[in-house]
């Protein structure tokens, strides 16, 4: 660790590492990433690993459409296999009202270049032969949605960023940040102080505490989301399956990984509960009965850092020049990682992001210009 860097990124999850990599790739290499524990130890390593562009508002549809383009080439780009697979997302809708809404959302997605489409029960069963077709009325399908392996993604970004000269410091926690009148910062860490011109807050569930160090009040709520993995099996499932708040997929390692919402808002722990298991098992076996015989191997939990409109805060803070946000993803931080890396790098280097994300700025909360998103699942 040196005593000064041009940019200090707080958080060694996918956001922080992707921003560091994209900066270094553009020749901006005077960068340190600070991680309080080990890389991927926060939300990234706990996530469901799904990647989708089937959202319900134009902003996230466009952002994730671009992210999926990046994901598809990420293993080659980073020189490390992150196990991206376009397994597709199959949403299952079980009431006429939900089917009508889905048709509307498909039309919107198609308008913005995400060519999802509705499928009937038989077509859904061709996509996933194990489905119980009595458990839904219609499906919604997009074959470019997919998954990647979170820890391999972290490793890929970290190794590529280090090769380009980025310093990545683990077990280095930020304890205070001082701003100066000249718009520079001194970041106090458990390993010493760092002077810098730019600070990026990519601290996931810790981002409110980091922002508070510079007097910025991020309006987030931490929601506990639980998840499980089964024993590894031969590849059988096919797509990511989603029904209401239930979702699961089969990873390249063969484990079925997924979760369901247990409604634990304003949580203060990430403990696993038996209640989650019974809800998940009931919902999961209803759509794929064969799963009843599959053994659950491990359960864990993480936080959704939920913002008031379920959209992230991205970009600079007007009142604190040089202080950038990449947080508040409301459950979608992993899938957005690559595109956030690119857009934040463009901001930090003083340019205009190649996709307009001004409406993701923190100032929207003060202006009352909230965004809308209804599809908040993994």
């Amino acid at each position, binding site marked *: 660790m040196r005593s000064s860097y041009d940019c200090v990124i707080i958080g060694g999850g996918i956001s922080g590492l992707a921003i560091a990599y994209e900066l270094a790739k553009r020749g901006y290499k005077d960068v340190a990433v600070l991680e309080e524990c080990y890389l991927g130890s926060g939300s990234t390593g706990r996530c469901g690993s799904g990647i989708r562009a089937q959202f319900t508002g134009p902003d996230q549809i466009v952002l994730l459409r671009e992210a999926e383009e990046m994901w598809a080439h990420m293993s080659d780009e980073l020189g490390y296999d992150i196990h991206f697979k376009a397994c597709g997302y199959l949403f299952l809708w079980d009431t006429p009202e939900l089917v009508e809404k889905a048709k509307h959302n498909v039309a919107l997605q198609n308008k913005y270049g995400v060519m999802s489409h509705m499928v009937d029960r038989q077509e859904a069963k061709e996509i996933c032969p194990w489905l119980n077709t009595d458990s839904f009325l219609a499906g919604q399908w997009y074959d470019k949605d997919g998954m990647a392996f979170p820890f391999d993604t972290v490793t890929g970004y970290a190794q590529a960023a280090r090769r380009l000269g980025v310093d990545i410091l*683990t077990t280095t926690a930020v304890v205070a940040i001082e701003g100066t009148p000249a718009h520079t910062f001194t970041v106090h860490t458990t390993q010493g102080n760092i002077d810098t011109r730019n600070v990026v807050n990519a601290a996931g569930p810790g981002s409110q505490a980091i922002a508070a160090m510079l007097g910025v009040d991020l309006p987030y709520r931490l929601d506990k989301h639980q998840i499980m993995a089964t024993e590894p099996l031969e590849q059988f499932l096919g797509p990511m399956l989603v029904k209401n708040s239930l979702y699961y997929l089969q990873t390249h390692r063969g484990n079925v990984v997924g979760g369901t919402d247990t409604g634990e808002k304003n949580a203060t722990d990430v403990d696993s509960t038996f209640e989650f298991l*019974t809800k*998940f098992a009931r919902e999961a076996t209803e759509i794929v009965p064969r799963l009843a015989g*599959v053994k*659950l191997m*491990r*359960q864990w939990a993480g936080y959704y850092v939920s913002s008031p409109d379920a959209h992230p805060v991205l970009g600079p803070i007007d009142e604190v020049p040089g202080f950038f946000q990449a947080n508040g993803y409301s459950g979608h931080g992993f899938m957005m990682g690559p595109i956030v890396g690119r857009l934040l790098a463009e901001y930090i280097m003083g340019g205009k992001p190649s996709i307009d994300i001004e409406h993701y700025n923190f100032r929207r909360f003060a202006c009352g210009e909230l965004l809308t998103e209804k599809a908040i699942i993994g």
Partner: protein
Amino acid sequence: MTREDEKTIACRCEDISVQEITDAIHEGYVDLQSLKRYVKFGLGPCQGKTCILLAAQILARETNRTLDQIMTPTARPPVDPVPLGFFVKGREADDEK
């Protein structure tokens, strides 16, 4: 005296050798949490009950630390794998198989 060689398996669920673990340590994965996730031992049906302590010992030896200087990963429930059907219907799901 040690009887291990490069072919000795440390993690039987994931088929990972002692050599793969020591290679990763020498690549710089010197905390057990990152090492486990990079090499991917301890993630199989035994949930690391066989290999985590072995890996911790190898890590301690390779980095000249004692075992209590190495943070071990959180033990995740369940202790042994359980069929999902068990959580839906209770015991009879297990008996039907």
